[in-house]
């Protein structure tokens, strides 16, 4: 009795477990991040499932294949390639893509690894093509009509005419990017992939080009430096020249003024003297006389030997006082005294 009961219990248990297993196998969830293709014996069945949520399938025979629904990134390696002007540069691009037709994607590629390698091939070669068709500057610059700000001093000092100037472009970076995008996009469509965006991440000079660029930059700067130094010296010379000029102007102006002032004064003095001394012939004679009288004490000193003749006015009396021209009789008493001393 209990054995039968036990056996029936076991059967029920097995059935329950089997049912649960079947049930579990016939439901699946789809996350917001993914999309699903149901395959039956390896062949896709029905439309791809892109809506997230709880879904049903035939248990065991149908298999769930999950794919990304989100936008994915392709980040290429930096690849060296020549531009139209034969400059070797390393270009590193990145792209954003999405699986839009998961059936095609599943049929052609199966998984993301092969998708990425397909992207490597297609984007790599399109990038190479586009870069080769354009000059380097087209991949660098974007805005055609941008006027760069200039450091006035540098621009003035620059003799090469390249400093502070942007090189002109015809199309520019974004045009090149969209060129690559358009071409690759068509090729990728057959894989169920929608290419959303291609962008240059990095563009580098290759090592030998870089060396030349550096040399050019150095020489460009050095000529400016030389210019600055020479400007300084020139400016200094100008200042010193001006200084010299100013000095000469100052001293000569002063000299002129001094001469004028002194000349005017001398003239005035001369006029004054002339007015006084030249007022009559008598005055002239008198002036001459006093001047001479003033001169004697200055001219004659203790080491002067004087030979005086008794014919001179001073010693006339020594010969006798009976001189006829005895008008100033009174004053003659005075000069007598020195005459006596002289005899000694």
């Amino acid at each position, binding site marked *: 009795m209990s054995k039968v009961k036990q056996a029936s219990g076991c059967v029920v248990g097995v059935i329950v477990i089997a049912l649960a297993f079947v049930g579990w196998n016939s439901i699946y969830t789809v996350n917001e991040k993914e999309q699903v293709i149901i395959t039956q014996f390896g062949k896709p069945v029905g439309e791809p499932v892109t809506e*997230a949520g709880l879904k049903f399938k035939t248990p065991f025979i149908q298999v769930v294949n999950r794919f990304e629904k989100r936008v994915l990134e392709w980040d290429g390696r930096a690849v060296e390639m020549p531009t139209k002007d034969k400059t070797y540069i390393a270009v590193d691009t990145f792209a954003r893509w999405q699986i839009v037709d998961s059936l095609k994607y599943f049929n052609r590629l199966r998984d993301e690894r092969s998708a990425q390698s397909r992207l490597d091939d297609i984007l790599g070669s399109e990038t190479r093509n586009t870069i080769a068709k354009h000059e380097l500057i087209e991949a660098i610059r974007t805005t055609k009509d941008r006027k760069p700000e200039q450091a006035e001093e540098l621009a003035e000092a620059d003799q090469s005419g390249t400093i502070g100037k942007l090189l002109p472009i015809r199309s520019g970076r974004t045009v090149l990017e969209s060129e690559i995008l358009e071409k690759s996009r068509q090729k990728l469509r057959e894989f169920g992939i929608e290419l959303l965006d291609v962008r240059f991440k990095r563009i580098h000079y290759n090592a030998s080009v870089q060396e030349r660029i*550096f040399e050019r930059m150095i020489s460009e700067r050095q000529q400016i430096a030389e210019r600055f130094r020479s400007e300084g010296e020139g400016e200094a010379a100008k200042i010193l020249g001006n200084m010299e000029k100013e000095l000469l102007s100052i001293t000569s102006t002063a000299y002129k*003024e001094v001469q004028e*002032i002194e000349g005017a004064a001398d003239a005035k003095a001369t006029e004054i003297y002339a007015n006084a001394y030249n007022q009559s012939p008598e005055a002239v004679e008198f002036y001459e006389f006093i001047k001479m009288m003033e001169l004697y004490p200055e001219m004659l000193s203790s080491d002067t030997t004087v030979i005086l003749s008794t014919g001179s006015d001073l010693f006339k009396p020594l010969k006798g006082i009976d001189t006829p021209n005895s008008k100033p009789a009174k004053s003659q008493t005075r000069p007598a005294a*020195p005459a006596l001393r002289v005899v000694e």
Partner: protein
Amino acid sequence: MIRIQIGKDVHEIPTPDFGGVGVAVILGAIVLIGAVLTSFYTIQQDEQGVVLRFGKEIKTVDNGLHFRAPFWIDTVEKVAVKRQMKQEFGFGTTGGSNYSQMSSRTEQEEEKSMVTGDLNAALVEWVIQYRIENPSQYLFNVRNADDTLRDASESVMREVVGDRTVDEVITFGRQDIESEAKQKLSDLAKKFEMGISIDQVQLKNVNPPQKVQSSFNEVNQAQQDREKTINVSLGEANKVVPKASGEAEQKISEAEGYALQRVNEAEGDAAKFNALFTEYQKAPEVTKRRLYLETMQKVMPQLGKKIIIDEGATGILPLLNLNENATPTLSK
């Protein structure tokens, strides 16, 4: 019933019979505990949670304790929306919480090396600060949104730098670059629908390449040299010119003094002469004689040797010893 045979002995141990009800109760209890344990979750202060039911997004919840459907029917993805995050390019500060904050050292070298719009090279380091604005977009639109942001940031910075001259990049265009890069990166983040908003783009060290650096410095130095040379000569001029002006004025003043003196003296002399002359005219002979004699009186005592000869005598001059360093002077 469990049968255990040891040697020839067979022991039969009776199993306890709980019956179907017992098993159901135990299973029920386990399920219940599991349900309770999996139906609560907390969202931190700076996070938001996106709730998915069977993988489908149903709502976004703010911080706090929340209830959800048990057994992973509902799952929650947490996103730090209030945290400001940072990405560094061309350099790296260790200890960042965000995995995408910095790249490896060799990558950093690559990151900062750029070509400018005049085909020169520059090393540019920068930082972006961003925030997750829309958790649902951040999680479900783009895989690895942070990595995409890094690439976008590099691309945008090169685009902006590529439109500028090396001097703009290195010296005076920094702010301009920051604001344009921020604008472009925000636009791109919006276009990519990454759910990220850009708060800031900041340039850090911006330099010419190592090998070129010294020539850039040389320009600055030459500029300084120029100023210095100019200043030195200005100094020289400043030292000399005012002094010369002063000296010139001094000479002029002296000349003016001389002029005053000259005129005054002349006037004095003239006045004296006039006075004398007036008196002289009253008695010319006597005055003249008086003046003559007065002078003689003054002069004679000072003289050294005096020889008086008769006016009749002639030829005695050679006899005199006049060899006493004095020149004979003849008075009239």
